[in-house]
């Protein structure tokens, strides 16, 4: 167990260093950032001074050392586009993304798990077939298309919900929240649904597959033979064993939501980190890109670490399997 944890931790550190190296290479070798920051009429001297201030004239080793040192403290320098510290920008954008992501994850689990149980238990019922057909369409519709359709229906045609932004936000310390105003709740509905739909279909299909798998096993047959009510069998015995993989998948789902938040935020002009990244790419704002890269890499490494350890802790069978495959 301890060896496994140490091995996973080392692997995580290695991945983080790789991500940092890519981010740093981006920093060091891409274009001339000065041109993106200053106007046409800036003198050569001013340019040189700015270059010096940003530390772009130092040697490779010095710059890499400084990059890693600063990255650990969450310091990624000044944004080329806004000439403000990247840390400030990210702290400003993070609450929006986190609120949206958790809302979406919550929705996906709230609807996905019961739908999966239902379609798993009543495989051939009319409702289950309909849900499966709809879920296939849900998988085939790209996230941004779902968002556009929602905007068309609820913002343009019906005019019920705002089509962009977060609505009115309330400041609590450095955190901003839209969940304390009616406006904010109206604004989060469509982005959260857009982001949740794909994950929901995924959870539903996973729970369904697991449920069907579990219902086939001998201990379920035995429970039925003992004369337990189907309610006790389904929810007491089958569901409990179904939820092990669901629990771990939820971790991966969070990661996937962070990835797709980029798309959803762009569709709804949601002022979060995803939108920030896309804007950074179009402006070649490299410090912001590098910071996003490192931050997302960190999120994923942590999530994966937790998921792996959860697997290990929850399901004893996996321990044996892992040792057998030497992985």
């Amino acid at each position: 167990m301890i060896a496994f944890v140490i091995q996973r931790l080392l692997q995580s550190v290695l991945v983080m260093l790789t991500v940092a190296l890519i981010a740093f290479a981006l920093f060091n070798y891409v274009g001339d950032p000065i041109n993106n920051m200053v106007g046409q009429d800036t003198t050569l001297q001013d340019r040189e001074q700015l270059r010096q201030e940003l530390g772009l004239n130092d040697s490779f080793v010095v710059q890499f050392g400084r990059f890693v040192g600063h990255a650990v403290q969450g310091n990624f320098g000044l944004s080329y586009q806004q000439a403000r510290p990247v840390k400030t920008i990210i702290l400003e954008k993070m609450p929006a993304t986190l609120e949206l992501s958790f809302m979406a994850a919550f929705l996906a689990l709230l609807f996905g798990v019961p739908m999966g149980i239902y379609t798993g238990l009543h495989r051939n019922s009319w409702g289950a077939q309909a849900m499966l057909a709809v879920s296939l369409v849900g998988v085939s519709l790209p996230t941004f298309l779902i968002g556009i359709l929602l905007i068309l229906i609820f913002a343009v045609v019906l005019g019920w919900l705002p089509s962009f932004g977060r609505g009115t936000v309330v400041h609590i310390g450095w955190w901003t929240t839209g969940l304390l105003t009616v406006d904010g709740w109206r604004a989060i509905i469509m982005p959260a649904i857009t982001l949740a739909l794909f994950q929901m279909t995924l959870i539903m299909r996973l729970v369904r597959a697991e449920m069907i798998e579990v219902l086939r096993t001998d201990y379920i047959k035995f429970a039925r033979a003992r004369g337990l009510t189907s309610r006790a069998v389904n929810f007491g015995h089958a569901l409990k064993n179904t939820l092990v993989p669901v629990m771990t998948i939820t971790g991966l789902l969070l990661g996937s939501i962070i990835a797709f938040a980029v798309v959803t935020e762009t569709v709804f002009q949601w002022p979060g980190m995803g939108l920030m990244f896309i804007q950074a790419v179009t402006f070649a704002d490299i410090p912001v890109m590098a910071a996003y890269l490192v931050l997302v890499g960190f999120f994923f490494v942590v999530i994966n670490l937790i998921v792996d350890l959860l697997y290990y802790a929850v399901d004893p069978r996996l321990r044996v399997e892992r040792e057998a495959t030497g992985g």
Partner: protein
Amino acid sequence: MAEVTTSGASVAVQPGQVRRFFDSDLWWSFRRSPVTVAAAIVAFVIIAAALLAPLIAPHNPYDLASLSLLDATDPPAWLKDGNWSYPLGTDTQGRDVLSTILYGTRLSLMVGVSAVLLSLLIGVTLGLIAGWRGGWIDTVIMRIADVQLSFPAILIALLIDGVARTMLPRDAQNEITIYVLILAIALSYWVHFARTVRGSTMVERNKEYIQAARVIGVRPARIVVGHLLPNVIGPVLVIGTINLATAIITEATLSFLGVGLPPTQPSLGTLIRVGNDYLLSGDWWISIFPGIVLALLILSVNLLGDWLRDAFNPKLR
């Protein structure tokens, strides 16, 4: 599809194989499923229309001389102010929406297919090397694959694409973008191919026909390409079909985000992005029609992929 026989063993199509294909389980399961047949027809129509775009498109959207701003943002023909020379209406520059969709589908398909082929090439090569050689090469390749698999593919494609774009000179971007896009998508999907091929290579490696080839002194490179490859390629082609849908979605998403194909060379995703800016002013047709085509294309390819996977997996029958 004719080259994928149920055994997955032969790659070239010979005359006798055509009849064998119509006798096969594959054809039988295809005919038995009306959804699959419908999906095949839809996919065929869209692909054929895209390939024939220069012949059947009513206008040439790239010919700037033929555009007239007087015809800009015309609604579809069946609505008031519509005009039958622009059946699905025009965009803000006066381009015929139907024609841009035909040309856009062509680009979307081209990027999707190229990306899948490239990722197949990368994945199969690395998978063969890992499975055949084993040892530290295997460890390195599979560790990279594991790490990459823990990130969503779309995020990887987005990051590769974004980083590559900032590295390129601004003025060259429009020409190179399409290759960057193909490479970014290919590099985010090779893992699935590599894992499958590695697994079946490790099984096949110890079989008698490979040992026999070794004993009579066939060079390793020839064993791998000539004997091993034909026996591990079958499942890969199925994954390829399923990945085609994902690759098309990825391309559309990147183009929609503005880091894919530029508006001068629009794919379906770019068209939706451009039209999205005018959605709020009521010009819905500019983005919704490309969206419908994209959704139909992905849905039909997905259904075909699902059917292929089920047909090759007897356990599910």
